[in-house]
């Protein structure tokens, strides 16, 4: 009986989404956290301060980054402790499928809501609507999967560690520095009426590079957790 190579992918994706339906409250945490961070920033500034609009890209990108980190710690840990990871690595289908499904599920459940919420929050900060907002969202459309892939790799590295939550931000920060630079750089360029093509293409390049390198690295890291 030949096992389709995507068996691990489809099985895990279905499982992740079904588990998510049992934890409805957990979905709301990242967007809620994102809204709180942005609002606190606004409260920290003078009411209706024009400077806030200039800082909006940075605030939105860093806010989304931190919000995505929240749900990363539990990405693989539960399945390691339950024994599902064991079954995946021992099973016939390639384990990378499971990792890709996990990253996709994390993006759908944590990344996408942040992207949708970014529009109203941007306007709240006084970021110009219209084309600049479009470029900001395009940047985040590529940035949020990057957060999931890079964060997923860090989560895989620390899956066997009890208190990995403290370590994740330190592991993820340097790997995401270029993402924040190009992401908010594109939004600032659009805001200033310049052509944001350059940074957007760099962001796309980073996304493609991460999608090819990091799932493999995360799978190797997870396999390491059994040793």
């Amino acid at each position: 009986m030949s096992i389709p190579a995507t068996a691990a992918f489809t099985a895990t994706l279905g499982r992740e989404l079904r588990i998510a339906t049992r934890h409805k409250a957990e979905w709301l945490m990242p967007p809620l956290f994102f809204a709180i961070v942005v609002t606190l920033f606004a409260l920290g500034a003078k009411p209706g301060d024009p400077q806030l609009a200039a800082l909006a890209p940075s605030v939105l990108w860093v806010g989304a980054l931190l919000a995505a980190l929240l749900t990363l710690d539990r990405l693989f840990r539960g399945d390691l402790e339950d024994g599902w990871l064991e079954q995946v690595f021992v099973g016939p289908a390639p384990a990378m499928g499971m990792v890709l499904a996990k990253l996709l599920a994390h993006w759908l459940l944590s990344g996408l809501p942040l992207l949708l919420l970014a529009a109203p929050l941007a306007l709240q900060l006084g970021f110009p609507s219209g084309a600049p907002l479009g470029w900001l969202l395009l940047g985040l459309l590529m940035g949020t999967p990057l957060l999931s892939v890079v964060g997923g790799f860090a989560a895989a590295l620390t899956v066997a560690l009890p208190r990995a939550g403290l370590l994740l931000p330190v592991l993820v920060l340097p790997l995401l520095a270029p993402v924040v630079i190009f992401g908010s750089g594109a939004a600032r360029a659009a805001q200033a009426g310049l052509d944001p093509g350059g940074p957007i293409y760099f962001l796309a390049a980073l996304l493609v590079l991460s999608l090819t390198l990091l799932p493999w690295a995360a799978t190797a890291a997870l396999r390491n957790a059994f040793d």
Partner: protein
Amino acid sequence: MTTLLSATALCIGRGDRRLVSDLHFALQPGDVLHLRGRNGAGKSSLIEVLVGLRPPQSGQVHRSAGDAFHWVGHRNALNPDLTLRENLDCWCALNGVPGDGIAPALDRMGLARLRLRPARTLSAGQKRRAALSRLLIARRSLWLLDEPLSGLDGEGLAVLGQLMNEHVTGEGAIVVTSHQTLPGKLPRVTVIELG
């Protein structure tokens, strides 16, 4: 008589500590290999190497049945929030196995009425039986069981004994770790004492 599982010059360790040195064996259909020893002697490490979950320090493991074997580890692979049925559905999807074997397997393990209960509400014995029910969902010639008896109640032990007996007489082979004696009457049991 194809050998289902063989090991040559196998050395296994946990961290930098050597647990098993220079192990050789070949498992024929009908054989039962019982790895016995006190806790921490390396039983789990050894079977995890045989399953391919961990690399040996040296030596080779060869599984002739390709990837088609059953692995029941310490952990039952049951997500607490999914129902028993959903957990087994996920396992079938992962292994490309049709789901219609689930119902009879649960009946045989006496778990039929717990089918729709979330896994977290099951007792330890019930969870162990749920993990063992996977052995019936898909026919595989090689079984690798890590401490299958742990948590099993009296009735569960009896069922497991029957399953192992039927499997072994039906041209199957089993590698099992346990510090207790195995249930049921098994024709050919070779014991490897560890630690």
